[in-house]
C-alpha cells in the first residue's frame, strides 16, 4: 500500500509499504478514505521532536472498516469510522479516573516509538487498537462537508473544544492565542459553548481574517492587551487558550488573563525549561491547565455538535491533495501557506 513515510526533518516520501498483517483480537483494519496533516506532524517534520526513520505519518483520519478482530463488538466491516489521534487502554489508573490523556500506555498514530509505535493514517490502511473503546462509528448518510468536519473530530476540533471547556462558564470572555488550526477550532468551540466574547490573537493577517469570519474579535499581539482590557472593563479574559505553543506568546498571556482566570494550554511544549513571568501569574492567582487532550471524554460531544450543524471545523480546510503529493503538502503546511490539508489516498 502507499503511505507517507517520515525519513527525517523535511523529508517525507510516499512509498510502498506492507499492508497491516495479523489483526489482534481488539483491533480493526480501516481503509482510509481521507486523512489530514496536523500541526503535531510538524514537530518531527521541522526537527523539533526526535523521531526514528520509516514511520508512517498521520493521526487524523476517517475511513471504512474492512476487517475486525475476534473481540470487537461495536463496529463491523463496512462501517464508516474515525478514531481519536491517541488510543488509550481504558484500564490503567489514569483511564479509570477519567483522565485518558494521561494513560500510562497512550499511543499516538504516526508519531514513532516514543508515542507507542503505532503506524499512522496518511496511508491506504490503518489499524486501530482497543477498537471498541477508541473507534467512533459515523452516520453513513453524512454529506461530504460533514465528513470533513468529522475527520477533524479525532484531533484539532476536540482539542480546541476541550481547551475551552476545561475552564469555562457561559458568558465568559475567551482569548485564543494563535489562530492556527487548533486556535480556530477553539474560537469555534468557544462560540458554541456560549462565550460572550471571543478574541483571537495572531500575527498572520489571513488567520485573523478567518478568525473574524468565525465571530472573533481579531487582533495582533501588539493590540491584544489593550483590546482585551477594553472588552472586559479592564478585568482581562476569563479564559486564555494558548494554541501557539510558543514561550513568548505564553509569557504575553500574563497581560491578557484576568485575576483568578485560567490559562488553558493545548499548545505543545517540549522544552526542558523556559523563563516565564511567574510574579505576574502568581499575583493574579492564575490557574493553569494543560497536557494531552482527553479525546475519549470529549470526542462524542464534538461529533454530536458537528452532526447537529453547530460546529463546522471543516470550513478551515484550505487544500485537498492526493496522498501521492504528501511531500508537497507538508512543505505547504510547514510554510503556513495552507491552513489545513486533506490527503486523499484514493487519488
Amino acid at each position, binding site marked *: 500500500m502507499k503511505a507517507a513515510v517520515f525519513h527525517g526533518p523535511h523529508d517525507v516520501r510516499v512509498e510502498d509499504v506492507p499492508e497491516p498483517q495479523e489483526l489482534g483480537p481488539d483491533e480493526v483494519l480501516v481503509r482510509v478514505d481521507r486523512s489530514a496533516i496536523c500541526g503535531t506532524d510538524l514537530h518531527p517534520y521541522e526537527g523539533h*521532536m*526526535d*523521531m*526514528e526513520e520509516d514511520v508512517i505519518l498521520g493521526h487524523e483520519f476517517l475511513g471504512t472498516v474492512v476487517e475486525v478482530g475476534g473481540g470487537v463488538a461495536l463496529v463491523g466491516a463496512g462501517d464508516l469510522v474515525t478514531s481519536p489521534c491517541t488510543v488509550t*487502554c481504558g*484500564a*490503567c489508573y489514569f483511564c479509570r479516573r477519567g483522565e485518558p490523556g494521561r*494513560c*500510562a*500506555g*497512550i*499511543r499516538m498514530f504516526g508519531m*514513532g*516509538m*516514543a*508515542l*507507542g*509505535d503505532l503506524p499512522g493514517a496518511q496511508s491506504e490502511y490503518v489499524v486501530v487498537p482497543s477498537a471498541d473503546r477508541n473507534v467512533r462509528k459515523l452516520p453513513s448518510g453524512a454529506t461530504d462537508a460533514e465528513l470533513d468536519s468529522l475527520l477533524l473530530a479525532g484531533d484539532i476540533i476536540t482539542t480546541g473544544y476541550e481547551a475551552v471547556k476545561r475552564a469555562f462558564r457561559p458568558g465568559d470572555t475567551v482569548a485564543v492565542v494563535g489562530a492556527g488550526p487548533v486556535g480556530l477550532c477553539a474560537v469555534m468551540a468557544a462560540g458554541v459553548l456560549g462565550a460572550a466574547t471571543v478574541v483571537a490573537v495572531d500575527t498572520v493577517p489571513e488567520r485573523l481574517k478567518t478568525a473574524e469570519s468565525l465571530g472573533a474579535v481579531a487582533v495582533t499581539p501588539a493590540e491584544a492587551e489593550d483590546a482585551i482590557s477594553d472588552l472586559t472593563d479592564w478585568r482581562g479574559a476569563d479564559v486564555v487558550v494558548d494554541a501557539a505553543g510558543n514561550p513568548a506568546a505564553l509569557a504575553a498571556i500574563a497581560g491578557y488573563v484576568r485575576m483568578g482566570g485560567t490559562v488553558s494550554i493545548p499548545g505543545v511544549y*517540549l*522544552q*526542558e525549561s523556559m523563563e516565564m513571568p511567574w510574579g505576574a501569574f502568581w499575583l493574579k492567582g492564575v490557574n493553569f491547565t494543560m497536557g494531552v487532550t482527553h479525546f475519549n471524554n470529549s470526542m462524542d460531544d464534538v461529533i454530536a455538535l458537528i452532526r447537529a450543524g453547530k460546529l463546522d471545523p471543516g470550513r478551515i480546510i484550505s487544500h485537498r491533495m492526493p496522498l501521492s503529493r504528501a511531500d508537497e503538502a507538508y512543505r505547504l503546511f510547514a510554510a503556513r501557506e495552507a491552513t489545513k490539508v486533506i490527503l486523499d489516498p484514493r487519488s
Partner: protein
Amino acid sequence: MGYFSSPEEVDTYIGEMFRQADGHPKVGPKMRAANVVMRVVYSDPDCEMTVRFEDPMQTVFGPAAGEPDITLSMPADIADRFWRGKYNLAVGLARSEVKAKGPVNKILKLVPLTKPLFPVYQGLVAAKDGQP
C-alpha cells in the same frame, strides 16, 4: 528460567550493546549529546545498569555513584524482547510491566534512538540463540 542465565549475561549483551552504541554512526552522536543519565533496574536476574548519555558515553554495570535523571524498572526478559524489536514500550507501561520515573521529555528523547540498536543487540545475542 528467563533468557539471561546470570546478571553478568545482562551486561554481556545489553551492557555491551550500549557500549557499542557510543560508536554507532547514526545514534552515537545523538546519545552523547542527550546529556541524560539513565538507570535500568532489571529483575530475574536482579541487577542494575547505569548509562550516562554524555560525551564520552559510559555504561556501568552494578551500583553506580550519583542520581540518575531517569530510572526504568523491568524484567530482564522484557528488555531482551524490547531490544529484539518485539516489545511495545507503551503497552508495557500500560500493563505496569515496565515502570519509569524521571522527566518524560528526556525519556521521549531517548526512545527514538533505540531502534537502530536493535540489529546491534540481535548480532550480540545471535551466538547465544544458536546454543542448544
